[in-house]
């Protein structure tokens, strides 16, 4: 039974963590504009997050310390501080985007504007992080997020043309009317959406909260190698439905209502209800994870006591950071920036910040001081290094591509 519940941590990070507002937006947008010509990027992204999440799960299970806790020892206080600043900035931006996504999902369900929902959602989010039990949050949102399976069903219902989809997937590149600049811009956004940094912070810190030991290594690997591909499959379904419905119409997607449309067209009100429930659970779950992650990273840098298992008054600094990042996320949205646009910017910034997260993990996962004989094997290191090269290339190319393609507008 205990095994079963710890596997649920993987499901939560797979659904609430893998599919979040970034994946929803990036997959639907690329599907509409490029068909599934970016399918390989999603595959590369999923393998990447598996490789690095396995490393951070192993580091945590063996050493009993979350990855970010160890980063400062290896990078030194200055480098680690710069790293912390970049990570927290991206995490808080992501939190803002997730809150906006929750607001938009509620708007679609109730027709009350999302900006009116945002403060309400923020208070509920804070209360959940303040009082609710970790395992309850985990299971509720993990299981509810599975409602996104509706996009798999919708895809099958829509009567797609497999030949044409295969044609798109097998010939990566821009279709007519698009150029290579926008193709690569969206490739980077999609890649960043799969590898969002907060996922590994949350994954390893959550493992500490669940008190993993070396005996839980198997659980960690099941979580990663089953949970993340499952999340990736849901993300792929969003791309597929969008490619089936919008790509033939030569239209682009820039609102959450459009993302839900394929489910509505295929399955009617039931499809709509499932899609909105799935959006809500995925974005709210991710908002919890990003809020906690901001607290985790700061507390772990300074060595403060942290975590949901402690009484808030025994982790006052941690809870202050969590509260502060929720307030900052709300403040970002209150500038009335469109949440979908905020998500697009967040993805690009997180692409720039990716090396900050993943290089230290690779370094720590090779450290015999922490891992003994459980350090990276040859396969893990080969994959880790290949991915690091890809991550650095994406980080370097992100901003120039953003400027030359004007955020992908072409």
């Amino acid at each position: 039974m205990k095994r079963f519940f710890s596997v649920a941590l993987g499901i939560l990070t797979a659904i609430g963590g893998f599919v979040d507002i970034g994946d929803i937006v990036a997959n639907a947008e690329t599907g509409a504009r490029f068909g599934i010509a970016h399918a390989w990027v999603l595959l590369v992204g999923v393998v990447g997050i598996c490789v690095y999440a396995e490393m951070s799960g192993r580091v945590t299970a063996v050493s009993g310390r979350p990855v970010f806790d160890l980063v400062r020892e290896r990078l030194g206080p200055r480098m680690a501080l710069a790293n912390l600043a970049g990570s927290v900035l991206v995490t808080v931006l992501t939190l803002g985007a997730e809150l906006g996504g929750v607001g938009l999902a509620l708007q679609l369900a109730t027709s009350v504007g999302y900006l009116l929902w945002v403060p309400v959602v923020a208070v509920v989010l804070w209360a959940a992080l303040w009082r609710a039990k970790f395992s309850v949050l985990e299971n509720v949102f993990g299981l509810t997020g599975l409602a996104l399976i509706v996009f798999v069903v919708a895809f099958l219902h829509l009567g797609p043309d497999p030949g044409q989809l295969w044609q798109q997937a097998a010939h990566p590149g821009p279709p007519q009317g698009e150029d290579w600049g926008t193709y690569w811009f969206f490739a980077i956004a999609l890649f960043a959406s799969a590898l969002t940094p907060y996922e590994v912070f949350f994954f390893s810190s959550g493992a500490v909260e669940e008190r993993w030991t070396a005996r839980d290594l198997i659980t960690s690997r099941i979580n990663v190698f089953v949970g993340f591909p499952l999340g990736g499959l849901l993300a792929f379904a969003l791309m597929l439905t969008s490619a089936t419905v919008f790509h033939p119409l030569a239209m682009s997607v820039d609102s959450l209502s459009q993302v839900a449309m394929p489910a509505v067209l295929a399955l009617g009100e039931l499809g709509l209800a499932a899609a909105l429930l799935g959006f809500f659970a995925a974005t709210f779950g991710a908002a919890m994870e990003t809020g906690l992650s901001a607290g985790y990273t700061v507390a772990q840098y300074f060595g403060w006591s942290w975590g949901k298992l402690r009484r808030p008054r025994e982790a006052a600094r941690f809870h202050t950071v969590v509260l502060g990042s929720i307030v900052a996320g709300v403040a970002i949205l209150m500038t009335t920036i469109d949440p979908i646009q905020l998500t697009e910017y967040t993805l690009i910034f997180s692409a720039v910040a990716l090396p900050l997260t993943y290089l230290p993990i690779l370094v720590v996962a090779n450290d015999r001081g922490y891992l003994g004989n459980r350090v990276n094997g040859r396969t893990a290191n080969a994959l880790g290094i290949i991915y690091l090269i890809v991550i650095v290339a994406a980080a370097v190319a992100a901003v120039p591509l953003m400027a030359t393609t004007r955020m992908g507008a072409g």
Partner: protein
Amino acid sequence: MLLGFDLLDRQIVDRDGQPVGKVDDVELGYDADGVPRISALLTGQRVLGRRIGGGLGRWIAGVAHRLAGPGDRGPVRIGIEQVGRIGSAIDLTVSRGDLPEPPLETWLREHLIGRIPGAGHES
């Protein structure tokens, strides 16, 4: 023992596994033969700020100093005799309650977190 690699920036936990802080610096003393030895671990933002240096470091240290208030007893000092095992974290042989509490934690608990209902409940 390699100072930079084995001690500095490592997490300190008390005998119950509760986080105490990071080793932000160490204090060196000399034994009877004049050989330098580590006499204590130092933790707190003031020490950390000094190590980071520059304007940012001064700012971090300054905030910590102001928070400590008039009854300032300097950074938290953990004598080497209170240190137990050194693994992926440094285990102390004492409880967190026996050490002075970091001023920022005290201040935030008294002025913000402790005032919110439910702060004393485990979730």
